[in-house]
């Protein structure tokens, strides 16, 4: 299961050793990429050469590398690079917010299920099973369609989608340490349930949770752009990658860059989070196989 190491003693030791050990070189590279992505998202609007929504019909569908438009222009003559830079902020936001909220809710739910009696545990887990029975995209579409279009609603939909897997991960991490000696000694020394949950259980859950949620951010970026693509998140004329991609469907033959640029942007940013998750798994010594 998702124990970091067997008992408390070795877990402590292992963590102290890994803290002293230097990060591996490839981790530095990946963290550098992540920092660049964050910088682009934060300062993107300052770097953008043009307005993301100013149409320029004369220069419409300019190809990649056109003078004044590094990545070309779309069907309305809007500068693709500027739209890309503005969209980065939305994309990062739709990656971070749903995962952030669902990791809190999911952790609480998973710890509750893991530490509650077997009946309550079964009840919570069976209800989660129902949500698990939906393919991710479909559940997001169902919830997103119900709430109506908008970035905020799309983030709510994705939060709903991500709570069950987080809760399940935490529940199994709790189950792995539930019978351990240190739990027994905490109970017999009179620690309250809440104290056991936060002081004994939570530290054993954090490492796999952080690794899993980091990769989940990548998925969230992909799905959020997907919802925009389907018309369920961002609305025109906003600069959002999924929306840009959908718009680009009309220009496959005239200017494929309109669809290609945002498609690749989604790929690159989700890839950065996936790689960060992989590196974190190595650095925190979490067994990835248990997480997928």
């Amino acid at each position, binding site marked *: 299961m998702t124990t970091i190491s067997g008992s408390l003693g070795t877990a402590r030791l292992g963590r102290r050793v890994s803290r002293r050990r230097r990060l591996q070189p490839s981790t530095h590279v990946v963290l550098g990429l992540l920092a660049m992505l964050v910088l682009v998202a934060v300062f993107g609007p300052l770097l953008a050469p043009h307005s993301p929504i100013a149409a320029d019909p004369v220069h419409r569908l300019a190809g990649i590398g056109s003078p004044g438009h590094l990545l070309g222009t779309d069907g309305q003559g809007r500068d693709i690079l500027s739209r890309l830079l503005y969209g980065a902020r939305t994309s990062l936001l739709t990656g971070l917010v749903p995962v952030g909220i669902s990791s809190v809710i999911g952790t609480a739910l998973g710890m509750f299920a893991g530490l509650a009696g077997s009946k309550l545990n079964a009840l919570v887990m*069976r*209800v989660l*099973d*129902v*949500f698990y*029975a*939906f*393919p*991710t*995209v*479909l*559940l997001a*579409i*169902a*919830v997103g*369609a*119900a*709430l*109506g279009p908008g970035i905020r609603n799309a983030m709510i939909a994705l939060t709903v989608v991500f709570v069950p897997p987080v809760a399940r991960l935490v529940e199994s991490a709790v189950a792995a340490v539930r019978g351990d000696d240190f739990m027994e000694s905490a109970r017999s020394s009179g620690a309250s349930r809440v104290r056991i949950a936060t002081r004994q259980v939570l530290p054993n859950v954090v490492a796999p949770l952080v690794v899993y949620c980091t990769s989940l951010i990548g998925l969230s970026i*992909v799905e959020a*752009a*997907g919802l925009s*693509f*389907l*018309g*369920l998140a961002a609305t025109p004329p906003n600069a959002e990658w*999924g929306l840009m*991609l*959908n718009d*680009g*469907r009309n220009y*496959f*033959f005239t200017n*494929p860059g309109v*669809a*290609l640029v945002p*498609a*690749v942007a*989604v*790929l690159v940013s*989700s*890839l950065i989070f*996936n790689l960060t998750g992989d590196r974190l798994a190595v650095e925190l010594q979490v067994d990835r*196989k248990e997480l*997928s």
Partner: protein
Amino acid sequence: MGRYVLLRTLVMLPIALGVSIVVYVTVKIIPGDPVASILGSHPSASARAAVEHHYGLDKPAVVQYFYWLGRVLRGDLGESISLQVPVRTLVSAAVGNTLVLAGFAAVVAVGGGVILGTIMAFARGRSPRVVANAVAVTSLSVPQYTLGVLFIVTFAVNLGWFPTGGMRDAITGGAVLQHVVLPGFASGLVPMGIIARMYSAALRETASSGWVESLRARGLSTPRLVGHIVYGSTSPLLTIAGLQLGYLLGGVVYVEVIFAWPGLGQLVYESISKRDLPVIQAGVLVAALAFVILNFGVDLLRAVIDPRVRKGRAVGV
């Protein structure tokens, strides 16, 4: 075996029911006025009442749910609000098309995944493993719509090998195979990468298990040993494949829209903008139930080939 089937059925039914409730509730709270979309923005009170009565919109929500469930179980999925034809007609036409696409993608995903996973686990020498691993990781990282766009631009627009979209030639009505290749690969590669990764992990885990060790100690030849390991890893493979095919059913939505494939995803996409409640409901329900039934089938298949599953002992993944 009979006991196992009964047990799995008892687990599946409440999940299927829960799925139907979730679908019903989510679609029920869609903002917008379905009556207005039929009669225009200011219908008279009597016309409104008549329409509400016709579609059962005047009953309490719980009653409406059970009415709806009863009709669904009889195969009646209601009437499309925007097109005024039975939803069943729309959905059954679309489901067939989606199955063609999903079937092709499943072959890509499971076939490719098994081949890559086997190379990653067993290949002699470092380079084939590194290459297989790179292919798996790359393909699982690329979102299906990104793949779709890349494929269209490369293979349809620039090279002209395949059509950019649609399912059949406009004139002859044939050549489905030619049309399915690009969307099939676009939706199959992500699950392929995941299956490859998890299958190679399952193979390695089986290879290091006690019973394989004892076979090795008995002096079995390598090919026979590999045969045993592969058979022992089939059960986790089925579990992984079942889950990934469900993922595929969802991801197909994007691919269908990009490639203008006339399937379930396309139908749901069009119904979203038209606020056509019954069609969205039916589309999501059919896909989610297909996923539940698929995993039920996978569990039964695992029980047939693996006695450990039948006897309720946990196996691998």
